[in-house]
């Protein structure tokens, strides 16, 4: 009885320490963020609203401390402006009726829109117009081949991307009129622009494969920037140009699954700004399915032995339980003589 009481005390204090240094400390270090949302209109507006709220709180705090009030005021102004432009932009996008998109017309629109000046579509016999070195030097990053874009990316996101890459990719803090994004906005070919956008999206969807392997998703969505050397895949963009374009070399993603964990990756890939405010990585706009595939790929690369670990674990723990029971019986037998 006394031993159980002592055991209770030991377990209690161990648990307090554990909870304090793990779940509790981590909740303090990494503030909670809203879960990933694949409705990109909602996600963009919610995020901008959240930023305004934060800026308001900062301002209140600055006012009560009477410190850095002006900085906080400017921040709030900027965040409000961003919320306005974000709302306007996505409300415009909402008017596009993707269901009316016509793939045949889209093919023509696509050709006329100039996309192939930068992007290849290998599956349609159109190789990329530049070699990697030239593309790296011209844009800072090699524009991705668009054969799979219709499968990888959400349709509404694609329309938004074509209309205004900076807004769709959420890199407003990096680009401006004086420092334009390497992928130009599409201003329409003179007809109904929303129809033209819907057509291009329909075209991209029509040529996209029905299914992709996990690693193909990675190759098409991430590999223009990131290496993942444990999977022996390396970015086709030149390192120096990329670092210059992004402000830093994008990290190798081999061990990301262990260093960041699934939950973080879910929200980060869906909207990098939410986890790393001000980061240069664009929001790439993957559908839920593609994102799951990328994360699976990261897990297969960085935590390849997970299954083996979990199944072996059962056996080892089971063995130890049996050992412990036998040891207990032996102990009882031995101590019967002395008690």
């Amino acid at each position, binding site marked *: 009885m*006394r*031993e159980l009481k*002592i*055991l209770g005390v*030991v377990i209690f*204090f*161990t648990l*307090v*320490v*554990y909870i*304090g*240094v*793990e779940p*509790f*400390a981590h909740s*303090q*270090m990494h503030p909670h963020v809203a879960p990933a949302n694949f409705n990109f209109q909602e996600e963009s507006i919610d995020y901008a609203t959240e930023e305004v709220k934060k800026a308001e709180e900062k301002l209140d705090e600055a006012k009560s401390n009477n410190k850095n009030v002006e900085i906080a005021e400017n921040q709030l102004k900027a965040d409000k402006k961003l919320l306005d432009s974000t709302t306007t932009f996505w409300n415009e996008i909402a008017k596009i009726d993707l269901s009316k998109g016509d793939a045949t017309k889209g093919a023509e629109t696509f050709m006329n829109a100039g996309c192939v000046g930068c992007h290849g579509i290998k599956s349609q016999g159109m190789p990329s117009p530049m070699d990697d070195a030239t593309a790296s030097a011209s844009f800072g990053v090699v524009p991705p081949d668009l054969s799979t874009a219709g499968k990888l990316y959400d349709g509404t996101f694609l329309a938004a991307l074509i209309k205004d890459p900076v807004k769709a990719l959420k890199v407003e803090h990096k680009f401006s009129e004086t420092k334009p994004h390497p992928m130009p906005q599409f201003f329409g070919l003179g007809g109904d622009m929303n129809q033209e956008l819907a057509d291009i999206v329909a075209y991209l969807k029509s040529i996209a494969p029905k299914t992709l392997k996990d690693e193909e998703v990675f190759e098409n969505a991430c590999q223009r920037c990131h290496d993942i050397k*444990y999977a022996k895949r390396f970015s086709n963009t030149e390192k120096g140009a990329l670092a210059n374009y992004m402000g830093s070399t994008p*990290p*190798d993603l*081999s*061990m990301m699954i*262990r*260093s*960041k*964990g699934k939950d973080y990756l879910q929200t980060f890939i869906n909207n990098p700004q939410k986890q790393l405010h001000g980061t240069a990585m664009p929001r790439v706009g993957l559908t839920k399915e593609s994102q799951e595939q990328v994360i699976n790929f990261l897990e297969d690369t*960085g935590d*390849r*032995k997970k299954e*083996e*670990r*979990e199944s*072996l*674990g059962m056996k*080892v*723990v089971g063995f*130890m*339980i049996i*050992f*412990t029971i036998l*040891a*207990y019986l*032996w*102990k009882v037998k*031995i*101590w019967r*003589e*002395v*008690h």
Partner: protein
Amino acid sequence: MAEIRKAEGIGDWFDQRLATKKLTKVLMTEYWIPKNINFLWAMGVVLVVLFTILIISGIFLLMYYKPDVKLAFDSVNYTIMQEVEYGWLWRHMHGVAASAIFLVIYIHMFTGIYYGSYKKGREMIWLTGMALFGMFSAEAFSGYMLPWGQMSYWAAQVITNLFGGIPVIGDALVIWIRGDFAVADPTLTRFFMLHVLLLPLVIIVLIVVHFYSLRIPHVNNQESEDIDFDKESDKYLAGNKKESKVVPFWPVFLSKDFFVSGAFLVFYFYLTFYHFDFAMDPINFEPANPMKTPAHIYPEWYFLWSYEVLRGFFFDVGPMAAMDIGLAAFGFANVIFMVFPFLDRDPNVAPAHRRPKFKIWFWLLLIDMIVLTVYGKLPPMGINTYIGFVAAVSFILLFVALPFITKCDAKHTGGVK
């Protein structure tokens, strides 16, 4: 020269040459342990088990690890974790055992403190125990550097920097320890040497001395009763096993230890396979990058309390800089447990629940160290800094008060019996 006869068997052959029968008696069957003990007295054997796991898993890791800043990270995270059959298992076992051993060391230490097992002839047990704690800390610190992840690098940077605060020789000392101006390849290689050679050797020697120092005073018991071991062991050998207050180390004491070790290993292997993040910090799966400071730098959980004593003093007092006060306090925290037997001025051995003031002191110390541990990890912002400060000051005051409190207890109880 001993008389050597024709051996009656292998056992006898060895006995004639090595006195194995006598040795077994001395070490096992006639090494006496009090009967009145609880599972906390099995912690020593649990430590031996964990230390063995560390050595064995370490040897396997050593076969593939490369102590070079360019190769270290990949040799661990790719070669060992992915290419070598069951390499991940050795790494997880090693990492989790390193963390679990500290949990058991702390339980072991607080058991010693609670039952007063550090005085009246048991000082050497305590001192060698504390030496082991010091060496294990160094072992853990040097081992944590080896994967050359972000936390390896930055913890090494921060901790080696501390030595710079030592007056006069500080700056030169930091460079001497690192073998370079910053933490770099020479630092990794020398910490590798420490981790796989010098420190384990020292630890093994210390464990032997620790065991040997138990020999004369014997281990304590739940009631701190002063047992006449000769009398009690005679009783046992005469067959009065139930009446005797002692039991032999083998098989009686160890039979219980096997059970406790088994139960602990169930828990340990559960952690190894399913719940290892607490011991293998995710941030360390990011390669070391001297250009990118992590948002939060913190040591492993078992160093947090002393780290918080260091950090707790966050403001300057007169001519003394916050950093220097913190460093002095940190030094204090790291040596004060060493002199514990000499701070306790109550000459009698008794469990804390029979020492009115010491009992309160004991639980306060435990709570204070837990508070320090938790706040050692939290970002030092707002209210956290003040709580950390109060806990750090309390820690020092508790030790300043210890001699007076124990003296007072001694007077009031007239020497506990």
